[in-house]
């Protein structure tokens, strides 16, 4: 595509997502994709590389990202080969999984504790790198690491970052595909819950050591809020949203815990900053959102688009009418006919109104998770309804 045309298309796409956030009616429904492995399985590159070859060869990765964009032409993508830096984990050799059901090939990440105690969270807050290097290292790598492994890991980070910069530019300049966000903000207690302490220990910490969690939250809060504030102040460039936000650990919290650890002074404040500065967030939510609907109702219209995968979208829309919604039920791409998949898209577009956009479920991984013909049919409808 000529650079001038790509520039026009990129600006058009930015406006489409702005309009969804602001509930402005439009002629077509924007398409947000989030495909990690599926595009490797869908490729027509011959001989067909394995997924691992794509993840270790950045030229091949660029080829498949271009091929996918040319074939499906989504309006925004959370993964242009840049969602997961698998090479880093493989180089270091951690992040273990266990087999839950050998016959069905079901695996699960092991719920690990990298700290050993809730108190250690305060040491993490004081100096994260020092804690990670001098203490977490001994839990994560009991057999130690060689200098070669560290050097290769640094190289893996560098290669990944360089590829991310390069592919972003390519997608902006040649395909008119905007960058998704200006910044990524992680609420202070997400990482301790999801990673540092593991789900089980964090769940106990919320009951036994809530003051420590409060203290950690307060220590990390300025950095979290500054990331969002700085993103709002930065020029828009080619991005759509100011902030990529996630809600993950809320799934093991009750309402009172959510209010204490993640809402008051935390997300509540972050949304205030976004609203004051005219910023927008795309918030990815795992698990249900209805139990915390009344908190999200406080967010002014135009600030929040939620990208979620679980629950009845009409119920969510009714409960949180100020929030734009990015959603599509993945089984319709797998088990139904193209006509039925289009009918579902139509039901969502017409039923949800202008604050709706299509989004891929990020769990689409196996090739059978979505059929090409269904994707083409749904995208064609979304572009031309």
């Amino acid at each position, binding site marked *: 595509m000529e650079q001038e045309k790509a520039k026009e298309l990129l600006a058009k796409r930015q406006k489409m997502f702005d309009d969804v956030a602001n509930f402005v009616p439009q002629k077509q429904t924007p398409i947000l994709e989030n495909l990690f492995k599926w595009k490797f399985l869908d490729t027509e590159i011959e001989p067909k590389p394995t997924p691992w070859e794509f993840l270790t060869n950045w030229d091949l990765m660029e080829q498949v990202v271009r091929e996918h964009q040319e074939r499906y032409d989504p309006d925004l993508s959370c993964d242009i080969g840049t969602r997961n830096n698998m090479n880093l984990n493989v180089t270091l050799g951690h992040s273990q999984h266990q087999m839950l059901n050998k016959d069905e090939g079901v695996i699960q990440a092991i719920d690990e504790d990298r700290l050993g105690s809730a108190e250690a969270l305060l040491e*993490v807050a004081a100096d994260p790198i020092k804690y990670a290097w001098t203490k977490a290292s001994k839990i994560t790598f009991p057999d130690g690491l060689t*200098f070669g492994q560290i050097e290769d890991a*640094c190289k893996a980070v560098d290669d990944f970052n360089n590829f991310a910069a390069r592919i972003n530019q390519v997608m902006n300049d040649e395909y008119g595909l905007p960058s998704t966000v200006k910044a990524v903000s992680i609420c202070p207690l997400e990482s301790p819950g999801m990673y540092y302490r593991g789900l089980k220990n964090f769940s106990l910490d919320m009951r036994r050591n809530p003051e420590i969690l409060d203290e950690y939250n307060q220590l990390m809060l300025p950095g979290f809020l*500054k990331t969002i504030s700085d993103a709002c102040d930065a020029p828009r460039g080619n991005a759509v949203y100011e902030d990529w936000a996630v809600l993950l650990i809320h799934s093991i919290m009750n309402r009172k815990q959510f209010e204490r650890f993640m809402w008051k002074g935390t997300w509540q404040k972050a949304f205030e900053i976004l609203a004051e500065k005219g910023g927008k967030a795309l918030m990815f939510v795992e698990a249900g959102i209805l139990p915390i609907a009344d908190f999200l109702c406080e967010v002014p219209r135009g600030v929040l688009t939620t990208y979620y995968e679980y629950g009845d979208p009409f119920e969510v829309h009714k409960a949180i009418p100020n929030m734009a919604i990015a959603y599509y039920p993945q089984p319709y791409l797998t088990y139904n006919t193209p006509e039925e998949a289009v009918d579902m898209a139509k039901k969502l577009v017409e039923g949800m109104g202008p604050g709706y956009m299509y989004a891929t479920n990020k769990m689409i991984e196996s090739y059978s998770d979505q059929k090409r013909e269904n994707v083409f049919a749904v995208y064609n409808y979304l572009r031309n309804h």
Partner: protein
Amino acid sequence: MDRNEKVEFTMEGYQKVLEALNIEGVASSTVANGNSSATVTNDKPAELKAALLAEVAMNFLL
């Protein structure tokens, strides 16, 4: 440092690794560290190496 040498998980060990790191041929790198991110280029190799090693270290917590 020899590539097969075990690193020491002390701050002195961290410094030793940082000094020994040889990252060549890098154009530029946007390095995320915790909640912040910054673009570091090879005009400042010391900063780039520090940012990369910090990101690797932070991964020990995951």
